[in-house]
């Protein structure tokens, strides 16, 4: 399959994530959309990694080009997991105090 398909897929996933963050009001769903964005990036990085590796492989079969993107994907996963743990803790903390995860509550600070 050509690389464009992968890029299109991950860009579409990313955009779904962005639109979700901007339009939804439920903190958990916003959170899921952010995860979707991160995973779209993961997909794109792996696709690019394969592309760069494939290009190098033709001339130099022992080349390690493209492996760093796969490493990066692992870093993203680890950091995303750390972020999830902190984020869910914050949401639980808010839920304990307001009994809601609706971000419309957040408008109170404006005054």
């Amino acid at each position, binding site marked *: 399959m050509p690389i464009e398909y992968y890029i299109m897929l991950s860009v579409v996933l990313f955009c779904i994530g962005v639109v979700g963050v901007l339009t939804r009001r439920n903190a958990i769903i916003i959170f899921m959309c952010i995860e979707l964005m991160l995973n779209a990036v993961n997909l794109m990085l792996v696709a690019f990694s394969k592309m760069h590796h494939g290009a190098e492989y033709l001339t130099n079969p022992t080349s390690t080009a493209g492996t760093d993107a796969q490493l990066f994907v692992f870093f993203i996963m680890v*950091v995303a997991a750390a972020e999830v743990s902190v984020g869910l803790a914050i949401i639980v903390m808010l839920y304990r105090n307001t009994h809601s995860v609706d*971000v419309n509550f957040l408008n109170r600070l404006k005054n």
Partner: protein
Amino acid sequence: MMFSGILVKHHAALKNIAIAGLLVLLGLNVGENYGFALFDINTTNMLHFERFGLLFNSICIFSTLLFVMLSGKDVEKVGNYTAEYFALIFFILCGIGIVTSYVNLMMLFIGIEIISIPSYILTGSDKKNLKSNEASLKYFLMGAFSTGIMLMGIALLYGTSGTFLVERAAAQTPSISYLEAMGLLLLFISLSFKVSLAPFHFWTPDVYDGAPTVFTSFMATIVKVAGFAAFIRLFESRYGSMGSQTERLIAIVIVLTLAFGNLTAVFQQSVKRMLAYSSIAQAGFMLFALFSLNDAAKEGLILYAAAYCLATIGIFAVLVKMEDGTFEGFNGFGKSQPLLAGVLTIFLLSLAGIPLTAGFFAKYYMLASVVKTGNNLGLVIIAVLFAAVSAYYYFKVIQAMFFKDGDVSFPAVTSRFKYLMVAVAAVIVILGIFPNLLLQFMYF
């Protein structure tokens, strides 16, 4: 630091441990600046330590040291987890160390995350306070969103160049492709989120207002300044290929940031919120370094970072102890605490950029760097105008302190606190007269 909470039962000792740790860090950092390293780790292609980054680290560590010495007592009052708060502050410092010296986009991402995640926790550390909760959720959602955008930018840059190295990626592509331009734009947007530049600033006032005041002081100064170091390092090596369109983009962002930050700060009732908006305005000034990107800009950014951090930490150290955070709360402060009021005046003057304070030379270097780039005088004039606007709301505090009567409920402070404040003010004045004392560390 993290485990000292288990070992040490007495809270006051934690502050001293933190101070000792910071002193050791500062010593080692300065030592490394002179070529003395305790241990040598191979960080090729990941981190590259050079003068600018190391000096920046020194400033951040020094400001944190002052922050802990001035406001350490107030950190203890936030909650029961004093040791953990200090540990989180140290984590942030670690992230700053990475962000000021990265050469690999992977390190940029990890450094920014190490800075952000503890900041979310610190924002929400006042668990029972609804405002603090909201601020932390808002900060978290915005921060995670901008992280996603940053990753997309990095992925696009990787796609065009096949490497995460900042410099080599720039060298390989002399002319800029759409994909790379898009990647850089996304990176720019996400970093703007982190340092709260104009179209992406909307979370800042709420978060700074909602967070416990001690931690606002830390986040508004040290964390923000570190973001600019990341900015400079990223765009420094990519600048040749970008040309006038980026310059125009940055100019628009600068003007928007200055306009929004200054004009909204004028109408604020609470000093804390005013400082939040003024920190947006100051970010606009710091962005001039990115606009001109020459040696003068780097010097200016170093000086600006030092001046801004010292002055803002000093003001917040007093503000934390205030019970009434509005402008009226400062009425008569000059009569009841003449020494502190005088010191506070120096801080405010420095933020406004009045000569004889460090803030003046910081702004001067920034604008001088822009003048050096040639025909951008219009931008300089706008900046000076907005600096004049900013003087208005800083002077409102001074006016309230000295020319209005009122009863200030201000708790008794130790003489050590006062001496420290005077020392910080002295540093600001000395830097305002001899800025080269700091800048000479960049070269020698």
